[in-house]
Protein backbone atom coordinates (compact mmCIF):
# COMPACT_ATOMS: atom_id res chain seq x y z
CA UNK A 1 0.00 0.00 0.00
CA UNK A 2 1.29 3.42 -0.94
CA UNK A 3 0.62 4.91 2.49
CA UNK A 4 2.58 8.08 1.75
CA UNK A 5 -0.06 9.40 -0.65
CA UNK A 6 -2.43 9.92 2.28
CA UNK A 7 -0.58 13.16 2.93
CA UNK A 8 -1.94 14.54 -0.34
CA UNK A 9 -5.47 14.11 1.01
CA UNK A 10 -4.83 16.29 4.05
CA UNK A 11 -3.10 19.16 2.24
CA UNK A 12 -6.28 21.14 1.55
CA UNK A 13 -7.10 21.06 5.26
CA UNK A 14 -3.50 21.91 6.15
CA UNK A 15 -3.58 24.83 3.68
CA UNK A 16 -6.79 26.09 5.30
CA UNK A 17 -5.12 25.90 8.72
CA UNK A 18 -1.72 27.39 7.82
CA UNK A 19 -2.67 29.96 5.18
CA UNK A 20 -6.34 30.93 5.54
CA UNK A 21 -6.53 30.70 9.34
CA UNK A 22 -3.01 31.25 10.73
CA UNK A 23 -1.97 33.56 7.88
CA UNK A 24 1.65 32.38 7.86
CA UNK A 25 3.73 34.70 5.70
CA UNK A 26 7.20 34.89 4.16
CA UNK A 27 9.95 35.63 6.67
CA UNK A 28 7.97 34.67 9.76
CA UNK A 29 9.39 32.44 12.47
CA UNK A 30 7.20 29.37 12.95
CA UNK A 31 7.57 27.00 15.89
CA UNK A 32 5.97 23.56 15.79
CA UNK A 33 5.79 21.88 19.20
CA UNK A 34 4.90 18.21 19.03
CA UNK A 35 5.43 15.04 21.04
CA UNK A 36 6.58 11.50 20.44
CA UNK A 37 3.07 10.02 20.15
CA UNK A 38 1.59 12.47 17.66
CA UNK A 39 1.14 11.78 13.93
CA UNK A 40 4.45 12.50 12.20
CA UNK A 41 2.86 13.02 8.78
CA UNK A 42 0.75 15.89 10.12
CA UNK A 43 3.86 17.57 11.53
CA UNK A 44 5.63 17.09 8.18
CA UNK A 45 2.65 18.53 6.30
CA UNK A 46 2.40 21.58 8.58
CA UNK A 47 6.14 22.25 8.29
CA UNK A 48 6.03 21.82 4.52
CA UNK A 49 3.12 24.21 4.10
CA UNK A 50 4.83 26.82 6.31
CA UNK A 51 8.06 26.41 4.32
CA UNK A 52 6.11 26.81 1.09
CA UNK A 53 4.81 30.12 2.45
CA UNK A 54 8.40 31.25 2.95
CA UNK A 55 8.50 30.91 6.73
CA UNK A 56 11.47 29.71 8.78
CA UNK A 57 10.31 26.59 10.63
CA UNK A 58 11.70 25.06 13.83
CA UNK A 59 10.22 21.86 15.25
CA UNK A 60 10.57 20.74 18.87
CA UNK A 61 9.67 17.18 19.84
CA UNK A 62 9.04 16.63 23.54
CA UNK A 63 7.79 13.86 25.80
CA UNK A 64 3.97 13.83 25.92
CA UNK A 65 2.54 15.75 28.85
CA UNK A 66 1.05 13.70 31.68
CA UNK A 67 -2.30 15.52 31.63
CA UNK A 68 -4.00 18.28 29.62
CA UNK A 69 -2.61 21.78 30.21
CA UNK A 70 0.45 20.63 32.10
CA UNK A 71 3.14 23.24 31.55
CA UNK A 72 5.71 22.36 28.85
CA UNK A 73 9.45 22.19 29.67
CA UNK A 74 11.06 25.60 30.18
CA UNK A 75 13.13 25.27 27.00
CA UNK A 76 9.87 24.98 25.05
CA UNK A 77 8.32 27.90 26.91
CA UNK A 78 11.31 30.09 26.06
CA UNK A 79 11.25 29.08 22.38
CA UNK A 80 7.54 29.95 22.20
CA UNK A 81 8.37 33.55 23.16
CA UNK A 82 10.42 33.99 20.00
CA UNK A 83 7.90 32.64 17.47
CA UNK A 84 5.53 34.64 15.29
CA UNK A 85 3.32 31.58 14.91
CA UNK A 86 3.10 28.46 17.08
CA UNK A 87 1.49 25.18 16.00
CA UNK A 88 1.02 22.43 18.58
CA UNK A 89 0.07 19.09 16.98
CA UNK A 90 0.18 17.31 20.30
CA UNK A 91 -1.52 14.66 22.44
CA UNK A 92 -2.36 16.61 25.61
CA UNK A 93 -2.87 20.33 24.93
CA UNK A 94 -0.59 23.00 26.33
CA UNK A 95 -2.75 25.79 24.90
CA UNK A 96 -4.05 27.17 28.20
CA UNK A 97 -0.74 27.02 30.05
CA UNK A 98 1.29 29.93 31.38
CA UNK A 99 3.89 29.27 28.67
CA UNK A 100 1.40 29.67 25.84
CA UNK A 101 -0.46 32.61 27.36
CA UNK A 102 2.75 34.58 27.95
CA UNK A 103 3.97 33.79 24.42
CA UNK A 104 0.71 35.04 22.95
CA UNK A 105 -0.22 37.98 25.10
CA UNK A 106 3.17 39.38 26.03
CA UNK A 107 5.12 38.44 22.90
CA UNK A 108 2.31 38.54 20.33
CA UNK A 109 2.57 34.98 18.97
CA UNK A 110 -0.36 33.55 17.03
CA UNK A 111 -1.17 30.13 18.51
CA UNK A 112 -2.84 27.25 16.66
CA UNK A 113 -3.62 24.25 18.81
CA UNK A 114 -4.08 20.88 17.07
CA UNK A 115 -4.57 18.35 19.87
CA UNK A 116 -4.94 14.62 19.11
CA UNK A 117 -5.42 15.53 15.47
CA UNK A 118 -5.88 12.60 13.09
CA UNK A 119 -5.26 12.26 9.38
CA UNK A 120 -8.98 11.54 9.03
CA UNK A 121 -9.92 14.85 10.66
CA UNK A 122 -7.64 16.81 8.37
CA UNK A 123 -9.19 15.12 5.32
CA UNK A 124 -12.70 16.09 6.40
CA UNK A 125 -15.02 18.72 4.96
CA UNK A 126 -14.86 20.47 8.33
CA UNK A 127 -11.11 21.04 7.97
CA UNK A 128 -11.66 22.62 4.56
CA UNK A 129 -14.58 24.80 5.69
CA UNK A 130 -14.15 28.40 4.44
CA UNK A 131 -12.78 30.64 7.19
CA UNK A 132 -14.83 33.73 6.10
CA UNK A 133 -18.02 31.70 6.37
CA UNK A 134 -17.17 30.67 9.93
CA UNK A 135 -16.58 34.36 10.70
CA UNK A 136 -20.03 35.21 9.30
CA UNK A 137 -21.68 32.54 11.48
CA UNK A 138 -19.69 33.84 14.47
CA UNK A 139 -20.96 37.39 13.85
CA UNK A 140 -24.56 36.19 13.72
CA UNK A 141 -24.14 34.31 17.01
CA UNK A 142 -22.48 37.35 18.56
CA UNK A 143 -25.48 39.53 17.65
CA UNK A 144 -27.59 37.39 20.00
CA UNK A 145 -25.18 36.02 22.63
CA UNK A 146 -22.82 39.01 22.80
CA UNK A 147 -25.66 41.44 23.52
CA UNK A 148 -27.67 39.28 25.93
CA UNK A 149 -27.84 39.62 29.70
CA UNK A 150 -29.16 36.18 30.61
CA UNK A 151 -28.40 32.67 29.37
CA UNK A 152 -30.52 29.56 29.99
CA UNK A 153 -29.37 26.09 28.90
CA UNK A 154 -31.54 22.98 28.91
CA UNK A 155 -31.34 19.54 27.32
CA UNK A 156 -33.50 16.44 27.20
CA UNK A 157 -30.85 14.67 29.31
CA UNK A 158 -31.99 16.77 32.31
CA UNK A 159 -29.63 19.75 31.99
CA UNK A 160 -31.12 22.97 33.35
CA UNK A 161 -28.67 25.74 34.17
CA UNK A 162 -28.66 29.50 33.86
CA UNK A 163 -26.55 32.55 34.53
CA UNK A 164 -26.05 36.23 33.88
CA UNK A 165 -23.76 37.68 31.24
CA UNK A 166 -22.21 40.51 33.18
CA UNK A 167 -19.63 41.92 30.78
CA UNK A 168 -18.87 42.08 27.08
CA UNK A 169 -15.36 41.04 28.10
CA UNK A 170 -16.63 37.56 28.89
CA UNK A 171 -18.11 36.58 25.52
CA UNK A 172 -16.51 35.72 22.18
CA UNK A 173 -13.64 33.37 21.58
CA UNK A 174 -12.78 33.29 17.87
CA UNK A 175 -9.80 34.92 16.18
CA UNK A 176 -9.81 36.97 13.02
CA UNK A 177 -9.02 35.17 9.77
CA UNK A 178 -6.20 35.45 8.98
CA UNK A 179 -5.21 35.51 12.64
CA UNK A 180 -3.65 38.56 14.25
CA UNK A 181 -1.02 38.92 16.96
CA UNK A 182 -1.85 37.27 20.27
CA UNK A 183 -4.80 35.28 18.94
CA UNK A 184 -5.62 31.65 19.61
CA UNK A 185 -7.29 29.01 17.46
CA UNK A 186 -8.04 25.39 18.21
CA UNK A 187 -8.01 23.60 14.86
CA UNK A 188 -9.25 20.14 15.63
CA UNK A 189 -9.78 19.21 12.02
CA UNK A 190 -12.30 22.05 12.18
CA UNK A 191 -12.61 25.54 13.53
CA UNK A 192 -15.53 27.58 14.81
CA UNK A 193 -16.57 28.24 18.39
CA UNK A 194 -18.32 30.91 20.42
CA UNK A 195 -18.63 31.07 24.17
CA UNK A 196 -18.41 32.80 27.46
CA UNK A 197 -16.89 32.65 30.89
CA UNK A 198 -19.95 31.85 33.04
CA UNK A 199 -18.20 32.72 36.28
CA UNK A 200 -18.44 36.41 35.59
CA UNK A 201 -17.78 38.95 38.28
CA UNK A 202 -20.44 37.55 40.53
CA UNK A 203 -19.98 33.85 39.72
CA UNK A 204 -23.71 33.51 39.29
CA UNK A 205 -24.14 30.35 37.19
CA UNK A 206 -26.52 27.94 38.92
CA UNK A 207 -28.22 24.69 38.01
CA UNK A 208 -27.47 21.15 36.90
CA UNK A 209 -25.70 19.81 33.81
CA UNK A 210 -25.60 16.26 32.41
CA UNK A 211 -22.83 15.46 29.93
CA UNK A 212 -22.88 12.99 27.04
CA UNK A 213 -19.07 12.81 26.80
CA UNK A 214 -16.15 13.71 29.03
CA UNK A 215 -12.61 14.93 28.51
CA UNK A 216 -9.96 12.18 28.83
CA UNK A 217 -12.55 9.44 28.15
CA UNK A 218 -13.12 7.89 24.73
CA UNK A 219 -16.69 7.54 23.48
CA UNK A 220 -20.15 8.50 24.61
CA UNK A 221 -20.73 7.99 28.32
CA UNK A 222 -22.98 5.08 29.29
CA UNK A 223 -24.18 7.05 32.30
CA UNK A 224 -24.23 10.85 31.86
CA UNK A 225 -21.80 12.76 34.04
CA UNK A 226 -23.67 15.17 36.33
CA UNK A 227 -22.50 18.52 37.70
CA UNK A 228 -24.47 20.49 40.26
CA UNK A 229 -23.38 24.13 39.92
CA UNK A 230 -23.74 26.83 42.56
CA UNK A 231 -22.47 30.37 42.07
CA UNK A 232 -20.08 29.39 39.28
CA UNK A 233 -18.59 26.42 41.14
CA UNK A 234 -19.23 22.67 40.78
CA UNK A 235 -20.42 21.50 44.18
CA UNK A 236 -21.49 17.93 43.35
CA UNK A 237 -20.36 15.34 40.79
CA UNK A 238 -22.24 12.17 39.99
CA UNK A 239 -22.53 9.65 37.17
CA UNK A 240 -20.83 6.46 36.03
CA UNK A 241 -17.29 5.21 36.49
CA UNK A 242 -15.87 8.48 35.12
CA UNK A 243 -17.41 10.54 37.93
CA UNK A 244 -14.68 9.69 40.44
CA UNK A 245 -12.05 11.23 38.17
CA UNK A 246 -13.91 14.55 37.98
CA UNK A 247 -14.91 14.48 41.64
CA UNK A 248 -11.23 14.16 42.53
CA UNK A 249 -10.37 17.22 40.42
CA UNK A 250 -13.28 19.27 41.76
CA UNK A 251 -12.42 18.44 45.36
CA UNK A 252 -8.62 18.45 45.27
CA UNK A 253 -7.23 20.66 42.50
CA UNK A 254 -7.14 24.35 43.46
CA UNK A 255 -9.91 26.03 41.42
CA UNK A 256 -10.68 22.67 39.78
CA UNK A 257 -14.31 23.29 40.74
CA UNK A 258 -14.45 26.59 38.85
CA UNK A 259 -16.89 26.70 35.92
CA UNK A 260 -14.55 28.04 33.25
CA UNK A 261 -16.57 28.14 30.02
CA UNK A 262 -19.80 27.51 28.16
CA UNK A 263 -19.01 27.23 24.49
CA UNK A 264 -20.79 26.09 21.34
CA UNK A 265 -19.52 24.85 18.00
CA UNK A 266 -20.24 26.84 14.82
CA UNK A 267 -19.10 24.50 12.06
CA UNK A 268 -21.94 22.61 10.32
CA UNK A 269 -19.45 20.21 8.74
CA UNK A 270 -17.74 19.23 11.99
CA UNK A 271 -18.64 15.70 13.02
CA UNK A 272 -19.68 14.42 16.42
CA UNK A 273 -16.78 12.00 16.74
CA UNK A 274 -16.40 10.83 20.32
CA UNK A 275 -14.90 7.36 19.98
CA UNK A 276 -11.51 8.15 18.43
CA UNK A 277 -9.74 10.30 21.00
CA UNK A 278 -9.98 11.72 24.50
CA UNK A 279 -10.26 15.39 23.55
CA UNK A 280 -13.23 15.46 21.12
CA UNK A 281 -12.02 18.69 19.56
CA UNK A 282 -13.82 18.24 16.24
CA UNK A 283 -17.05 17.37 18.05
CA UNK A 284 -16.71 20.56 20.10
CA UNK A 285 -16.83 22.50 16.84
CA UNK A 286 -20.00 20.75 15.61
CA UNK A 287 -22.58 23.50 15.10
CA UNK A 288 -24.94 23.71 18.07
CA UNK A 289 -23.10 21.32 20.38
CA UNK A 290 -22.03 22.63 23.81
CA UNK A 291 -18.86 22.04 25.75
CA UNK A 292 -18.33 23.16 29.32
CA UNK A 293 -15.01 23.39 31.09
CA UNK A 294 -13.96 23.28 34.69
CA UNK A 295 -10.64 24.71 35.85
CA UNK A 296 -8.63 27.46 34.24
CA UNK A 297 -10.51 30.42 32.74
CA UNK A 298 -7.52 32.71 32.63
CA UNK A 299 -7.14 32.61 28.88
CA UNK A 300 -10.88 33.02 28.37
CA UNK A 301 -11.45 36.46 29.83
CA UNK A 302 -11.81 34.97 33.28
CA UNK A 303 -9.60 35.64 36.24
CA UNK A 304 -9.30 32.18 37.75
CA UNK A 305 -6.19 30.08 37.17
CA UNK A 306 -6.08 26.32 37.64
CA UNK A 307 -3.48 23.83 36.49
CA UNK A 308 -6.23 21.94 34.69
CA UNK A 309 -8.88 22.66 32.07
CA UNK A 310 -11.27 19.81 31.27
CA UNK A 311 -14.11 20.05 28.73
CA UNK A 312 -17.27 17.99 28.93
CA UNK A 313 -19.86 17.77 26.20
CA UNK A 314 -23.58 17.98 25.50
CA UNK A 315 -24.60 16.98 21.96
CA UNK A 316 -28.05 18.59 21.69
CA UNK A 317 -28.58 21.51 24.06
CA UNK A 318 -31.22 24.20 23.84
CA UNK A 319 -29.84 27.65 24.57
CA UNK A 320 -31.94 30.76 25.12
CA UNK A 321 -30.60 34.31 25.47
CA UNK A 322 -32.94 36.96 26.92
CA UNK A 323 -35.84 34.94 25.54
CA UNK A 324 -34.30 34.42 22.08
CA UNK A 325 -33.51 30.83 21.13
CA UNK A 326 -30.08 30.49 19.55
CA UNK A 327 -29.76 26.70 19.71
CA UNK A 328 -32.80 24.43 19.57
CA UNK A 329 -32.11 20.79 20.49
CA UNK A 330 -28.65 21.00 18.99
CA UNK A 331 -29.64 22.98 15.89
CA UNK A 332 -27.80 26.29 15.58
CA UNK A 333 -30.59 28.49 14.22
CA UNK A 334 -28.40 31.20 12.65
CA UNK A 335 -27.27 28.64 10.07
CA UNK A 336 -30.61 29.38 8.37
CA UNK A 337 -29.96 33.13 8.34
CA UNK A 338 -30.20 34.47 4.74
CA UNK A 339 -26.80 36.21 4.98
CA UNK A 340 -25.17 32.96 6.08
CA UNK A 341 -26.93 30.97 3.37
CA UNK A 342 -25.94 33.50 0.67
CA UNK A 343 -22.29 33.33 1.65
CA UNK A 344 -22.43 29.53 1.79
CA UNK A 345 -23.69 29.51 -1.80
CA UNK A 346 -20.77 31.77 -2.84
CA UNK A 347 -18.35 29.19 -1.49
CA UNK A 348 -20.31 26.23 -2.84
CA UNK A 349 -20.99 24.86 0.63
CA UNK A 350 -24.28 23.44 1.90
CA UNK A 351 -25.46 21.55 4.97
Amino acid at each position, binding site marked *: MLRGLEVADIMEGVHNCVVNCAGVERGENVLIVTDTVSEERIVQALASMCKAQGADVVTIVMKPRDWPMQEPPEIVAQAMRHADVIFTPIYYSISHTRAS*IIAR*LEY*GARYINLPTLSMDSLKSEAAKFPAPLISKIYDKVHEIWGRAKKIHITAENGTDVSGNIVSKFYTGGMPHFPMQE*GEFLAFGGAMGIYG*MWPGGDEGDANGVMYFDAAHMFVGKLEVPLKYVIKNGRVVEVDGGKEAEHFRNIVENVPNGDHLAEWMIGLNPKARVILDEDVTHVEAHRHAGALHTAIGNS*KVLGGDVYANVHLDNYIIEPTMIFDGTTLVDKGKLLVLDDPDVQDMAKEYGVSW
Partner: protein
Amino acid sequence: MNNSPKSGTSHELAQEIFVQGLVGDPENSDFIARHDRAIQFTIEGETPFVVDVRGGKVEIYEGTSNDPDLAITANSDIFRQVFRGLMSPGEAWMDDQWWVGGAFSDYVGTSWIMRLIKAGVHSRMKQIW
Protein backbone atom coordinates in the same frame (compact mmCIF):
# COMPACT_ATOMS: atom_id res chain seq x y z
CA MET B 1 -11.98 65.70 30.83
CA ASN B 2 -8.81 66.75 32.64
CA ASN B 3 -5.46 66.30 30.92
CA SER B 4 -3.22 67.44 33.78
CA PRO B 5 -1.65 64.61 35.76
CA LYS B 6 -1.30 64.64 39.53
CA SER B 7 2.16 64.31 40.96
CA GLY B 8 3.09 60.82 42.13
CA THR B 9 -0.03 59.11 40.87
CA SER B 10 -0.38 56.12 38.58
CA HIS B 11 -1.91 58.57 36.11
CA GLU B 12 1.35 60.53 36.11
CA LEU B 13 3.45 57.41 35.67
CA ALA B 14 1.22 56.36 32.75
CA GLN B 15 1.82 59.79 31.19
CA GLU B 16 5.56 59.31 31.56
CA ILE B 17 5.60 55.84 30.05
CA PHE B 18 3.00 56.26 27.29
CA VAL B 19 3.56 59.87 26.26
CA GLN B 20 7.22 60.61 27.02
CA GLY B 21 8.50 57.07 26.53
CA LEU B 22 6.28 55.38 23.96
CA VAL B 23 5.27 58.32 21.78
CA GLY B 24 8.58 60.11 22.30
CA ASP B 25 10.49 57.30 20.62
CA PRO B 26 10.07 57.31 16.80
CA GLU B 27 10.85 53.58 16.73
CA ASN B 28 7.40 52.93 18.23
CA SER B 29 5.29 54.92 15.76
CA ASP B 30 4.24 52.01 13.52
CA PHE B 31 3.51 49.82 16.51
CA ILE B 32 1.35 52.47 18.18
CA ALA B 33 -0.60 53.11 14.99
CA ARG B 34 -1.38 49.44 14.46
CA HIS B 35 -4.62 49.53 16.50
CA ASP B 36 -7.10 51.92 18.12
CA ARG B 37 -8.21 51.09 21.65
CA ALA B 38 -9.51 52.91 24.74
CA ILE B 39 -8.12 51.31 27.91
CA GLN B 40 -9.73 52.02 31.27
CA PHE B 41 -7.27 51.93 34.19
CA THR B 42 -8.72 51.47 37.66
CA ILE B 43 -5.98 51.73 40.27
CA GLU B 44 -6.95 51.04 43.86
CA GLY B 45 -7.30 54.25 45.91
CA GLU B 46 -6.71 56.55 42.93
CA THR B 47 -8.84 58.41 40.41
CA PRO B 48 -9.50 56.19 37.39
CA PHE B 49 -8.06 57.25 34.07
CA VAL B 50 -8.34 56.32 30.41
CA VAL B 51 -5.51 55.77 27.94
CA ASP B 52 -6.96 56.41 24.49
CA VAL B 53 -4.74 55.25 21.64
CA ARG B 54 -6.17 56.37 18.33
CA GLY B 55 -4.66 57.15 14.94
CA GLY B 56 -1.15 56.71 16.27
CA LYS B 57 -1.71 59.27 19.04
CA VAL B 58 -2.05 58.69 22.78
CA GLU B 59 -4.34 60.75 24.99
CA ILE B 60 -4.61 60.18 28.72
CA TYR B 61 -7.36 61.67 30.82
CA GLU B 62 -8.85 61.19 34.25
CA GLY B 63 -12.30 59.68 34.52
CA THR B 64 -14.12 56.69 33.10
CA SER B 65 -15.06 55.65 29.61
CA ASN B 66 -18.61 54.50 28.95
CA ASP B 67 -17.42 51.78 26.59
CA PRO B 68 -13.72 50.92 26.98
CA ASP B 69 -12.18 48.31 24.70
CA LEU B 70 -10.02 46.98 27.51
CA ALA B 71 -9.95 47.39 31.28
CA ILE B 72 -7.00 47.05 33.65
CA THR B 73 -7.52 46.82 37.40
CA ALA B 74 -4.58 46.82 39.82
CA ASN B 75 -3.31 48.11 43.12
CA SER B 76 -0.84 50.98 42.86
CA ASP B 77 2.19 48.94 43.93
CA ILE B 78 1.70 46.38 41.14
CA PHE B 79 0.94 49.13 38.64
CA ARG B 80 4.22 50.84 39.51
CA GLN B 81 6.24 47.63 39.32
CA VAL B 82 4.86 46.88 35.84
CA PHE B 83 5.25 50.45 34.60
CA ARG B 84 8.81 50.64 35.92
CA GLY B 85 9.77 47.42 34.15
CA LEU B 86 10.22 45.47 37.39
CA MET B 87 7.39 43.03 36.68
CA SER B 88 6.19 41.58 33.37
CA PRO B 89 2.58 42.51 32.54
CA GLY B 90 1.80 38.97 31.40
CA GLU B 91 3.29 37.32 34.48
CA ALA B 92 1.45 39.80 36.72
CA TRP B 93 -1.79 38.84 35.00
CA MET B 94 -1.11 35.11 35.30
CA ASP B 95 -0.32 35.53 39.00
CA ASP B 96 -3.58 37.43 39.69
CA GLN B 97 -1.59 40.55 40.55
CA TRP B 98 -3.67 42.61 38.15
CA TRP B 99 -6.64 42.03 35.93
CA VAL B 100 -6.77 42.73 32.22
CA GLY B 101 -10.27 42.53 30.76
CA GLY B 102 -11.07 41.93 27.14
CA ALA B 103 -8.96 38.83 26.90
CA PHE B 104 -11.77 36.55 25.78
CA SER B 105 -12.87 38.44 22.71
CA ASP B 106 -9.93 40.79 22.24
CA TYR B 107 -6.67 38.87 22.41
CA VAL B 108 -5.26 41.30 19.86
CA GLY B 109 -5.88 44.31 22.08
CA THR B 110 -4.73 42.54 25.23
CA SER B 111 -1.49 41.43 23.62
CA TRP B 112 -0.96 44.86 22.09
CA ILE B 113 -1.45 46.81 25.33
CA MET B 114 0.96 44.50 27.18
CA ARG B 115 3.58 45.10 24.51
CA LEU B 116 2.84 48.84 24.41
CA ILE B 117 3.62 49.02 28.13
CA LYS B 118 6.88 47.11 27.63
CA ALA B 119 7.86 49.28 24.65
CA GLY B 120 7.05 52.44 26.62
CA VAL B 121 9.13 51.31 29.60
CA HIS B 122 12.01 50.34 27.29
CA SER B 123 11.92 53.70 25.48
CA ARG B 124 11.70 55.68 28.73
CA MET B 125 14.73 53.76 30.10
CA LYS B 126 16.68 54.65 26.93
CA GLN B 127 15.75 58.31 27.35
CA ILE B 128 16.80 58.38 30.99
CA TRP B 129 20.02 56.42 30.71
